[in-house]
């Protein structure tokens, strides 16, 4: 009734290729854009902006990257957080030590991370499945060690580097709103790029590789090239996300923030959000960021002060339970739930 495909005529190539061919989707997207660009920055409190929205955007970027690699190209990676660390540290070094402009530094963080990702993606040419998963775990430990032990990268004792003041064209970014716009800007650009990447030739190739790789090779897809591109793109996204979250949220690069548990959490996010969808990346990241808040509110009904211990335990129970739940009940995650809702809306309120 409210969500209809009928009356949508695809009478030009441009319309046929539109990301949102259905008007309601398009309006919804515009509303979301207005919400995130105008409404949220001017109405949300500082706490919401800097502690919820900014990490949500940064994790979304990282999860989009992992989703491209694991959800689209089918190459599971459990070392994704390490590439966030690579991006964070290289952006900091570029910006703080070499004085390269901020936006270029963040981009540089992504590019460095992408190249490191290609190196660690090399084994994927010969191995796959669990062997590859463990090989990517190797990247986590090797990168962590290099950052902590090679003083040139980390400077400090525990690999902690403070972020300097952020200037863009002489404009000092210090309020949460400005940082929010920085993160949001990157997110919009990267999400649009990702959506178009996975719709295009490359995305089709990735999905073919994910489904049956040797069949993909036989129909003429260059596995060698496309797998490495998937690794490069995914780690590029991770690098940018790492740089952004360090600049806008943590305020200091610390290797503990990019621990192997973060890599696991990122995998949990793509499962809960939905493998192989860009929308799912947002849902998964949003869920992960909001979960502690929900628990606080919920447990707050029963007790005065919610101990951080209880909260973190509840977090892992709910997170783990939901991973299992989604795998059993809805393997395509929250994104598929959204599709189901749309299917229902098509007829609602009529039975058929």
């Amino acid at each position, binding site marked *: 009734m409210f969500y209809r495909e009928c009356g949508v005529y695809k009478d030009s190539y441009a319309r046929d290729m539109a990301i949102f061919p259905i008007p309601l989707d398009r309006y919804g997207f515009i509303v979301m854009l207005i919400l995130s660009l105008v409404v949220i920055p001017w109405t949300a409190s500082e706490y919401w902006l800097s502690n919820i929205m900014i990490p949500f955007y940064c994790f979304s970027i990282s999860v989009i990257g992992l989703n491209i690699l694991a959800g689209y190209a089918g190459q599971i990676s459990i070392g994704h957080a390490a590439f966030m660390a690579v991006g964070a540290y290289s952006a900091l070094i570029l910006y703080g030590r070499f004085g390269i402009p901020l936006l270029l530094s963040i981009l540089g963080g992504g590019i460095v991370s992408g190249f490191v990702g290609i190196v660690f993606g090399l084994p994927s040419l010969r191995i796959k499945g669990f062997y590859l998963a463990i090989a990517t775990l190797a990247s986590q430990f090797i990168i962590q*060690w290099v950052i902590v032990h090679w003083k040139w990268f980390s400077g400090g004792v525990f690999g902690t580097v403070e972020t300097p003041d952020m200037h863009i064209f002489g404009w000092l970014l210090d309020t949460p709103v400005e940082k929010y716009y920085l993160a949001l800007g990157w997110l919009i650009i990267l999400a649009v790029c990702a959506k178009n990447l996975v719709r295009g030739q490359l995305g089709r190739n990735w999905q073919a590789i994910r489904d049956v790789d040797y069949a993909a090779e036989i129909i003429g897809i260059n596995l060698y090239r496309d797998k490495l591109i998937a690794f490069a793109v995914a780690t590029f996204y991770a690098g940018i996300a790492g740089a952004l979250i360090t600049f806008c949220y943590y305020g200091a690069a610390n290797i503990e923030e990019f621990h192997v548990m973060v890599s696991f959490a990122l995998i949990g996010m793509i499962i809960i959000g939905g493998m192989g969808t860009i929308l799912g990346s947002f849902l998964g990241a949003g869920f992960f960021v909001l979960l502690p808040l929900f628990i606080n509110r919920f447990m707050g009904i029963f007790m005065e002060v919610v101990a951080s*211990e209880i909260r973190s335990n509840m977090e892992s*129970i709910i997170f783990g339970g939901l991973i299992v739940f989604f795998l059993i009940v809805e393997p395509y995650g929250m994104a598929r739930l959204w599709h189901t809702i749309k299917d229902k809306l098509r007829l609602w309120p009529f039975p058929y």
Partner: protein
Amino acid sequence: MTFFFEVLINGLLVGIMYSLVALGFALIYKASDVFNMAQGAMSLFAGLALVGFLYQYMHLPLWLSLLCTMGVMTIWAYVIVYVILRPLVARPPLMLFMATFGVMYLMEGIGQSIYGTQAKGLNIGIPDKTFEVGGILLSSFDLTFAFVAAVLVVGLVWFFQKTRTGRALRAVSDDHEAALSVGIPLLKAWVVTWIIAGLVAVVAGVAWGTRLGVQFSLGYIAFKALPVLIIGGIDSIPGAIIAGLVVGAGENLAEVFIGPYIGGGIQTFFPYLIALLVLYFKPYGLFGKEIIERV
């Protein structure tokens, strides 16, 4: 030269423990095609439960505590197989793999909710004295646990190769559907494997828990076993044993003889470096079954 042997032998003793944990992975992988990321969390849970039975909530004697811990791990095995894995039977292995991530989070969360997050000491009365054999310093604790692990490894290999249940498990690992069709109860076979993995987790939890204290990072011992596993080949029992010894000795030697030049603490990643090298030349590990795919 004695120093070299001391480092080597101590490395080998640690290596036997790695073999044991890797064996836990390999067994489950063979029987159910599940790569069990929760193995580390299982060790953590076993350690926590043991501390709970020994000092925290009850004051049971050691043997009873170990038995109760084993009971708890058995309950987990049933829950995992019947609640989580049963609906996922025909799904691709990658899904099962991800489900074990969920199990990992669940175990950590539940374990720490019950037993608390602070590090706990664990002492089960095995003396930790160092003594000298032919100029080589050895720790009695390491020796004891290496012995226990070795016995377990031999026992498991025997169990898998010789007993009826072991044969059924191998049949399941070869082909789920064929095993079902000749009347092997798949889920029961899985429960048995998960119980064995629980047993391995208890031993690993006790050994590492005594040395490092029972705390969250105990779950990380799984990361030590993963490179062992892929060096040996995920589905190979002899592979897990040999690779465990190689990694144990290799990382200890590397730490002592290479470590000082490039800045210490290389134990965390050195096994992975070996693993990457091995994978580059042997994509299915040294002893793993090569998968040949046809269109």
